[in-house]
């Protein structure tokens, strides 16, 4: 149980948003293979502090792969080499001793670097605040079983709603597009009967806001799906784009009741 490995790290260090960044090299020896990747970085930071050096800043919180706080690029891959895994759920048993690891922050115009591996992703919430909800006040809801939703439709809506907003899709995209994030939000609501009244208005506003926030356009390389720790499918992008087109073509887009999406 006491397996340990040695790794070499090259980490992007940048003291502030406007400051010049550079790579720094660190050796970590005797890392337990049962430790998570972030626990390995904790160990490195503890070592740096004890040497009077500045620890590496990185975002993290739940360390269960659900809050979406963590994320950086390891050897060119967002969240590292394992599919469907946030960096906090990546474990050191995945690596051989002597591995060379290059760590960089998400790089996108809409995600400015805050410090080291930490970026500012508040632009995602600007997109959600542009209609990413069902407009229903507390006190108005009918009995929950009055709205029937088939098991498959509910399951599919869940698949889209599982997006944790970590930003890996943006980091993996050569255009730094937020199309997977935005389409997943749009698709979740569009799958459900409760989401129909605002369906076209929502997609039009959210897609336009995405562009306004400085994210790039989608050119369908599908890197986003490969990088997504929650396995969100690019099918949501196809569906979202179809709805967006309809929203822009139909004159009274807010009132359209077309249900082709859910079918």
């Amino acid at each position, binding site marked *: 149980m006491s397996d340990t490995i040695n790794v070499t790290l090259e980490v992007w260090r940048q003291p502030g948003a406007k400051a010049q960044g550079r790579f720094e090299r660190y050796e970590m020896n005797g890392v337990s293979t049962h430790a998570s990747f972030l*626990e390995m970085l904790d160990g490195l930071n503890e070592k740096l502090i004890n040497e009077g050096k500045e620890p590496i800043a990185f975002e993290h919180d739940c360390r269960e792969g*659900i809050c979406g706080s963590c994320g950086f690029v390891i050897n060119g891959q967002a969240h590292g080499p394992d599919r469907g895994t946030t960096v906090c759920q990546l474990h050191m048993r995945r690596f051989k001793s002597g591995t060379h690891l290059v760590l960089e922050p998400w790089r996108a115009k809409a995600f400015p670097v805050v*410090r080291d591996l930490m970026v500012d992703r508040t632009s995602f919430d600007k997109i959600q605040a542009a209609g990413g909800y069902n407009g229903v006040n507390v006190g108005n809801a009918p009995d929950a079983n009055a709205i029937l939703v088939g098991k498959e439709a509910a399951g599919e809506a869940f698949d889209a709603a599982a997006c944790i907003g970590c930003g890996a899709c943006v980091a993996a995209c050569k255009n730094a597009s937020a199309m997977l994030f935005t389409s997943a939000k749009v698709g979740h609501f569009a799958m459900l009967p409760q989401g129909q009244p605002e369906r076209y208005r929502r997609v039009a506003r959210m897609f336009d806001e995405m562009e306004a926030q400085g994210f790039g356009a989608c050119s369908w390389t599908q890197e986003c799906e490969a990088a997504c720790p929650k396995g969100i499918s690019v099918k949501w992008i196809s569906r979202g784009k179809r709805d967006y087109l309809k929203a822009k073509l139909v004159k009274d887009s807010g009132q359209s009741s077309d249900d082709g999406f859910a079918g």
Partner: protein
Amino acid sequence: MVLDSKTPTGPLETRWTSHKGHIQLIGPINKRKYHVIVVGTGLAGASAASTLAELGYRVTVVTFHDSPRRAHSVAAQGGINAAKNYQNDGDSVFRLFYDTIKGGDFRARESNVYRLAEVSANIIDQAVAQGVPFAREYGGTLANRTFGGVLVSRTFYARGQTGQQLLYGAVAGLMRQVDTGQVKLLPFKDMLDVITVDGEARGIVMRDLLDGKIEALTGDAVVLATGGYSNAFFLSTNAMKSNVTATWRAHKKGAFFANPCFTQIHPTCIPVHGDLQSKLTLMSESLRNDGRVWVPRKKDDKRAPNDIPDADRYYYLEEKYPTFGNMVPRDVASRNAKYVCDQGMGVGASGYAVYLDFRDAIARLGRQAISAKYGNLFEMYEKIAGEDPYKVPMRIYPAPHYTMGGLWVDYDLMSNMPGLFVLGEANFSDHGANRLGASALMQGLADGYFVIPYTIGPYLSARGPGKGITNDHPEAKKAVQDAVDKTKRLLSLNGKRSVDSFHRAVGMKMLDKCGMSRSAAGLTETIAFIREQRAEFWENVSIIPKDGDTANQELEKAHRVADFLEFNELMCQDALARNESCGGHFREEYQTPEGEAQRDDENYCHVAAWEHRGVGEAPTLHKEPLTFEAVKLSQRSYK
């Protein structure tokens, strides 16, 4: 002083309706004249902020995250209770109320718990309307499952990510109000203090986590929805940033802290792997529906689990509690796991783990059915533990998970400090000495959607609009200066030890002496240790970088750990003062001959609300007696 809970009188079933019906209303034109500050964007904070905004109040929401969606409610797995009786199995508001009171070992207020059970059904309706994708049957109706401590199926769920989906529903509602301009959302802001004027809450002091600026935010009322303090133990299932700072600093300004020693140690978590361990991961209690808990009957049995025949397996929960079996409440399940491990029957490298075995359920229902129910949990286990739970039993051990204690609040969820309201896990109100599974999400959302929107009214209308202070008020300026000075002092320390090293040292001691089992001697020893570490912290902590005006994660942590180093002492003092065992508070000196918690209703049937007297000074205890009219106090039995 006498603590007035302001609980309505009359029949239990009509108290909430009658209370709501007589609340002073504020007209729509006047609501916009009030500014309410909400701290925290978990289930309680997000739901409160959006609902208050829907009513017309001006709301500012503060979170230390970059996004409200990251609040730790997101990590709740199993489900949310509601007395819908959709399964036709005899559930009712009274039954949910009774289960919750009994589950809490008769240390919660009847009126609050009844109200919680009453509004539970509305929460499900609201969540569905928002688009929360709960699990469904093929016919399109909602699905349910069973949780610990109950005999009905009343738990609604969204795979193993119920908290995530409920939070996203609440956050979507919040973003809608941001969209309309009724809510101002301030991310990356850490609350460092409450601003009080003549003993009433008038605002908060917050530090910007990107540029370090410390400033005041003033308003007509402050709502704290800042979660629990399980990270007092260093290792817990809470997120790394979860902390006690907001409630503790409110406490130091005069708000009473109630039942701090009532903490929950969740029975099914992945065991510790080694020295780098930074947190513990919970495996949903729902797994106990199909998983069977056991250890080898023989001590130090080193055989692989699948090589141990049934005759040599000790299914200790099923044997000791035939009625509830593996579904006993959390405190009972945790204590029994510790007991068998202390007896030398534990498994794994450390000997501090028990098996949670799905072999029989897979044989009975098939791998596919188990995967459909728990797929993501099994995947998560495999990622962390490196073993396939479809083939070998999970190894689990209890871990700190939830804190029932919190700031004292009355029936209107207002603390003893006028103008300071406290919701969700941050208050003490509904779970007594032990919380039942799937009740935390219920309480957070009940408080936010259905209680505070009504109960904040009387306070505001009694004060009248336009009575808020500005940032130039001397009290606001003083509170800001105090926070600036404290930050400077932290940065000026040129010590040798990391912030984490203090957190770890004190937390692990707490886990050992103030965790699943406690004794007067252990608690006394721990108080001395905390004091020693606290003194050293203020001389020997090292915070790098030294800049206060940029993102500085070590400085953030230092503020939080400094507060844990004070708060933990109060937790021990509360545990020491409560000379009985109840729920999650197990004092070794007070147990039944069978080793169950032995309550002392004659002397301890009360809420212990502590008043701050200065760091290191003995706090003053105020007791709110608990009276039971609808239920009869009894020794809990799950046999």
